[in-house]
């Protein structure tokens, strides 16, 4: 089972890698279009900061299956902690939950879950992410939510995953635009072209119309990334859980063997003592 998890984990890592050039291209376009549309970013709905943000949505990303150590429970725990924190500030909280495990735990604890998404956590497709993202952005745009947090396991290595809270909405401009791509991703003649860039570019439709769509795409990608990270973390956690289960079993076998020998030896010694004692009494 550990081997199976390792092979799946490798594929999950590859999927995280595979989305990077796409996400980088979207960022680059968002930067270009934002500059061309001269400040119309301020009017993009998904960037709108609402104060006070009284209605908070939290998306908990868990797995469909267990046997993965603290992977699922730590997400639910963090979600409930956040809920208490937001409540104490006078805000309301709406949960959406990805994964069968998280959904059943929340149900067991009597928490209301607005939307459940299950059946894909080990291998999420972009379409799954987009469905979730569109539900959340629609609630944000319609005014049902003022803020949306994602809580998921961030993947570092097979041994290391940690719970990450990330504010999906409102989007932050600085996050979307990111650092200017360095090294390999820079176009060779980018600097030369930069000067007369905007003037000669064609935008279809107008830059002002493109911008909100690019931010929407960015939100989709953020959710997709969280799902992929969570999938890799789940597989990593399961692999680690399986390995420590095997190791624990090995250790337990060694301990018990020792214990068994000790008990047997004690019994033999006891019998010898009795025989010797008996012989002495006769003698």
């Amino acid at each position, binding site marked *: 089972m550990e081997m199976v998890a390792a092979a799946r984990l490798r594929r999950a890592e590859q999927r995280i890698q595979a989305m990077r050039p796409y996400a980088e291209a979207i960022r680059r376009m968002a930067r270009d279009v934002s500059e061309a549309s001269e400040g119309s970013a301020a009017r993009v709905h998904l960037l709108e900061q609402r104060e006070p943000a009284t209605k908070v949505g939290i998306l908990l990303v868990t797995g469909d299956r267990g046997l993965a150590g603290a992977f699922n429970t730590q997400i639910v725990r963090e979600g409930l902690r956040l809920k208490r924190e937001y409540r104490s500030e006078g805000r309301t909280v709406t949960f959406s939950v990805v994964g069968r495990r998280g959904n059943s735990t929340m149900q067991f604890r009597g928490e209301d879950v607005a939307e459940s998404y299950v059946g894909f956590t080990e291998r999420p497709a972009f379409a799954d992410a987009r469905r979730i993202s569109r539900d959340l952005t629609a609630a944000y745009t319609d005014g049902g939510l003022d803020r949306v947090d994602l809580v998921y396991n961030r993947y570092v290595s097979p041994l290391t995953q940690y719970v990450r809270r990330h504010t999906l909405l409102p989007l932050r401009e600085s996050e979307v635009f990111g650092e200017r791509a360095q090294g390999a991703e820079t176009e060779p003649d980018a600097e030369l072209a930069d000067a007369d*860039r905007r003037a000669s570019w064609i935008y279809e*439709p107008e830059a002002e119309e*493109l911008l909100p769509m690019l931010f929407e795409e960015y939100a989709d990608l953020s959710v997709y990334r969280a799902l992929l990270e969570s999938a890799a973390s789940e597989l990593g956690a399961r692999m680690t859980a399986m390995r420590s289960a095997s190791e624990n079993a090995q250790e337990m076998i060694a301990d018990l063997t020792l214990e068994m020998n000790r008990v047997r030896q004690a019994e033999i010694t006891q019998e010898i003592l009795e025989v010797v004692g008996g012989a002495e009494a006769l003698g």
Partner: protein
Amino acid sequence: MPVGTGPIRASRTELALAEGRHKLEAQVMTPEREVFSGELIQLSTRTTLGEVGILARHVPMIARLVPTELRLHLEEGETQRYAQGEGWLEVFANRARVLVSEAIPPDALDARELRERLAEAERELAEAEEGGAAQEAAERETRRLQAFLEIAEKPTGPA
């Protein structure tokens, strides 16, 4: 097919051919994988404003793509086709990038399944609240399925 259908395009293609720099670099990506990377004569797709054909040395462009048939003309008479979802086209420095939610070869489409899903999407569209986010989502899904169904039902003739 579309290469050289119009007089202006034909002359531009011929001119570019004569100059020996008639190709552009193209890349087709989805968030899940790279679908295509290589040199092309022409890339045909559809933006929110209508059909576009991108030839070598096209002016820089950023466009919103809508579901349609994406055609990559590799050589005269050699075309790769994909059913493309919503996405983006970025043209810069003789390189065209197509970033779409999905890019599926036409023979991987199942017309019957698409018809069923289209009927379902149309039902959802009819039931959706006027002006709401659900209505917009249903509209987009309907348009995507219509475009894909059209591609799936098209007889596969020579490119």
